[in-house]
């Protein structure tokens, strides 16, 4: 499978990366080189093989049902959460106006 400029524009839009025409043109052969190379995976007969979901068998843990059990990940840290926000206002993340 290979991609053309329209495909790359669609992918870039899904990935929320703005790309102008020149950037799209440049990306088409780069992506096709990589996609052409990974195509060889199709040679492998994988019928009956389960796709890997966990590389090291591990059980999924649940934490104790305790409020704020670990202070590092607990609530009540609004200032810390907002400390790096490009636009924090009134205790919230600020974003441009959204009108739908």
């Amino acid at each position, binding site marked *: 499978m290979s991609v053309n400029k329209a495909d790359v524009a669609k*992918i870039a839009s899904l990935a929320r990366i703005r*790309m102008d025409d020149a950037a799209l043109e440049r990306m088409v052969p780069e992506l096709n080189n*990589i996609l052409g190379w990974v195509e060889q*995976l199709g040679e492998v007969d994988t019928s009956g093989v389960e796709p890997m979901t966990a*590389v090291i068998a591990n059980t999924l*843990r649940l934490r104790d049902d305790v409020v704020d059990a670990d202070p590092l990940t607990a609530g009540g840290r609004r200032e810390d*959460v907002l400390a*790096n926000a490009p636009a924090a206002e009134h205790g919230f993340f600020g974003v441009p106006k959204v009108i739908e």
Partner: protein
Amino acid sequence: MMSDLTQLGVKAIRDGVSGGDFTAREVAEAFNAAVAGAAALNAFIVTTPDHALAAADAVDERRAQGEALGVMGGVPIGMKDLFCTKGVQTTAASHILEGFIPQYESTVSSNLWAAGAGMLGKLNLDQFAMGSSNETSYFGNVSSPWRKDGTNAAMSPGGSSGGSAASVSARIAPAATGTDTGGSIRQPAAFAGICGIKPTYGRCSRWGVVAFASSLDQAGPMAHSVEDCAIMLGAMAGFDPKDATSLKMDVPDWEAALDADLKGKRIGIPREYRMEGTDQAILDSWEQGKAWLRDAGAEIVDISLPHTKYALPAYYIIAPAEASSNLARYDGVRYGLRDLPEGSGLQDMYAATRAAGFGDEVKRRVLIGTYVLSAGFYDAYYTQAQKIRALVAQDFAQAWAQCDAILAPTTPTASFPLGSLSDDPLTMYLNDVFAVPASLAGLPAMSVPCGVTSEGLPLGLQLVGKAFDEQGVLNAGLAIEERAGFTAKPEKWW
């Protein structure tokens, strides 16, 4: 005396501080000065001399009080700038995180500080750990301290932990943290003539480590010797409830159990790793490695890992897929860069921010990842790659019936000049052809320096072990280290 301190490794510093041969402060001052004098390497994104001094003073104070100093007591280290450090800018070498000041400390760095280590600074890397040459950093290339004999061309330190490798081999840090997703500890360690180990997936907590490909990312130490790696890995590892994939297992005392006697051990040589395009010097070093391990008492056995050829292309589906998902968090809202073009809305802000903030290699991988996960292509690419990942892991599981550990080259070539491969992503990816299979299988793997090429560049040998058997990897590494007698150092030009 003071300048000599920078020639010491982890164990020598720790034991020297606890024995009173010198103070932790003297060590920190010596390395701070070495860091300040090595700007030409561009190994650090920010330096934190005060952090190193404060940690050192705390260790000296504990010693005065007769308290235990910790397994890393008095050792100042470099911290790859992928670990969140409270109050110290953490960028993943990306413009999109420039100015990001974590409000918390990663578990791994926190463990190291608790063990008595201090921080010299945050080390440069490939952007979001995506790269094999340290040429994708927003903060500029890292130069290897090594050069080809008789030339001045700047060489690649490898990647993504290029700043880590460069700083240790230049002896401006006695050790450094690295992270390895598909070779990012082992390949730079090989290029720089140092040791580095990626432990079993889950040994080191990923909490507070900027995520690249979560099913593959593992932290590990990079240092001068196998023993130094054993010590530092012991300080980094451990169960962490904040990481869902953290191993709930005790951390063995790897340092105490080091043993280079390999009698009764079988070392596998995978025939599929004899690939076209591998330098003769690498093949020669592999032969030499077999002889060393035999000399240490091991039996050398031929093994087969039949899906080796498919590991790298499978990795280049899985890792970008996970990256495209992980990097969705950089949206210009909660932290990092925001680019809000005049009059634009939320969606435009996302797209503009990510266009301005991500480098070319990051964009390439996010786009590949988005494509292979998109409707209609998911099964053909992503599911197939996950099945092949299962086959690669199964290859190793079957090999363990015949051997206890595997010996292979770390890389197909020695270091290359900066700029020589940067226009050719596929050739760059091939650098990790020997490193990626162990990553896909989550296995512990280490690179140990074994010699230099005819041009004076270091080469590494790789050891891969069974899950949870870091000890077997370290022991075989020690057997090679003792026999290789690697003492080459880069000549100081910086």
